[in-house]
């Protein structure tokens, strides 16, 4: 067993175990914290693949940002929702099974699975990513499109959440 296989199995165990815990934990907050393990596992997998920038970004954005927002949301929502659990179950089944099915079909219908797990020698990933993102023939345009989409979503959210300011704060 070499180091790569060892770390791969360790990190995948962490990712899958975390996801499983998140699924089966009774407490929503514990689920969220279990997601942390999953995120860290995935980050580790990226690291094994030599994508260190992606790994760190995974931690920074998912663990440091999105998970915190999840937790923030969870703490603001009362422990029990209004609708009974039985109602939610078939819906949850559909939501859970559908993407898995799609993924499986896609995975099995491709001729060559078992992707190569190792990139070439990882050199200066930051530079490569930066060039890929910002070169005119690179991903600059899609990247900016995505940011505009996010901006639009942000403006929409602000519009929805904002109180009427007609009478207060005239300035």
């Amino acid at each position, binding site marked *: 067993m070499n180091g790569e296989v060892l770390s791969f199995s360790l990190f995948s165990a962490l990712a899958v175990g975390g996801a499983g815990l998140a699924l089966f934990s009774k407490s929503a907050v514990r689920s969220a914290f279990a997601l942390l393990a999953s995120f860290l596992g995935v980050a580790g997998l990226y690291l094994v693949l030599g994508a260190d920038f992606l790994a760190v970004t995974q931690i920074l954005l998912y663990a440091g940002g999105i998970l915190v927002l999840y937790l923030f949301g969870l703490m603001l929502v009362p422990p029990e929702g*209004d609708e009974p659990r039985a109602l939610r179950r078939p819906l949850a089944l559909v939501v859970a099974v559908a993407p898995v099915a799609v993924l499986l079909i896609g995975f099995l219908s491709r001729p060559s699975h078992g992707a190569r797990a190792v990139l070439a020698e990882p050199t200066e990933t930051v530079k490569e990513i930066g060039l890929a993102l910002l070169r005119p023939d690179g991903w600059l345009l899609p990247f900016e499109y995505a940011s505009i989409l996010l901006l639009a979503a942000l403006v929409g959210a602000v519009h929805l*959440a*904002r109180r*009427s300011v007609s009478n207060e704060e005239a300035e």
Partner: protein
Amino acid sequence: MGLTPSFAQAPGSEVEVAVPTQDCSINMGPQHPATHGVMRLLLKADGEVLTGAQAHLGYLHRCAEKIGENVDWTQYLPYTDRYDYLSAMNNNLGYSLAVEKLMGLEVPERAQWMRVLLAELNRIASHLFAVGTYGLDLGAFTPLFYTLREREEILDLFQEICGARLTCTFIRPGGLFNDAPEGWLEKVESFLCRFEERWKEYDALLLRNKIFIERTAGIGTLSGNDAVTWGVTGPLLRASGVDWDLRRDQPYLVYDQLDFEVPLGVGRQGEVGDCWDRTEVRMSEMLASLSMIRQCLDKMPDGAIQHPDAGPVLRPAPGRAYVGVENPRGELGHWLVSDGTKHPVRVRMRSPSFCNLSVVEHLLPGAMLGDAAAILGSIDIVVGETDR
């Protein structure tokens, strides 16, 4: 408290954001650093915003009034030290004036001037503590140590004249227990000179600090009308713009011979009657007291410090008397009933902290959790006095 869904509804918008939330009730105290003693505030909070507040008192109840019925008129003096333990001289003074009113005693002139001097010194000490701990409530540790440094000097002066630092038992019915020792008045004078310089430090560290202004300006605003309605007195009342000071409006002792101004809240940073104004009024009152002490030092006559008729055992004529004095925290009133024996029949006091504290239930709802400490601190209660 059950699940009470409240619907955060944006007024005037078409979209209703219907997130059922539950107010969280929090016990602030009885062991909480911002309650300045053993007091409990039951807060209700919607996130960081408070929706209700209720003060629970009595953790420090020591039967001060009932004790008064079981001791001599003079023996009650040490107990007056202990209800507002930060302004013992003023409490002694209030009680002594009430007893003298019952007995119809006229205190010798030197004693009157000394009393004013001591009361104003104690007012400075008390305000120093109030302003310092207020900084502490807002997270600024250091100003407290600076104010305590100067307060210590005042307490040293007290120790030199009466032997105790906090519980003075010095002003007594009929005058004072003792005259000032040799050179004491000069020491007061030199302290005043030092103090003026130091005052500027607190001013810069607290009052003029941007964060302090942000934390206090416009917070816990108490309008003049509300202040009168709630029976608030002292710096709180004056911070709300109500020009009322017993030292000037119902002068006792020699206050009518002194020239002083009564600082009022003008809402320089936020609104009239906010936490900043209260602190500012306290700070200005220190300077006003300073000038009063200077005048006392200038005009201090020689003579006796004790009325010859006031011996250790007093027997006031049957009757009743109320005397209110301007304490650092507001009007301290003593209501005494005598039946001509050496024991009081009734000793009752109107304690300023107790009356002032009642406004928290009016001020806190709508403020934020962090403001709870700011508002409570600006009221400047002494739990020994609210519970007695």
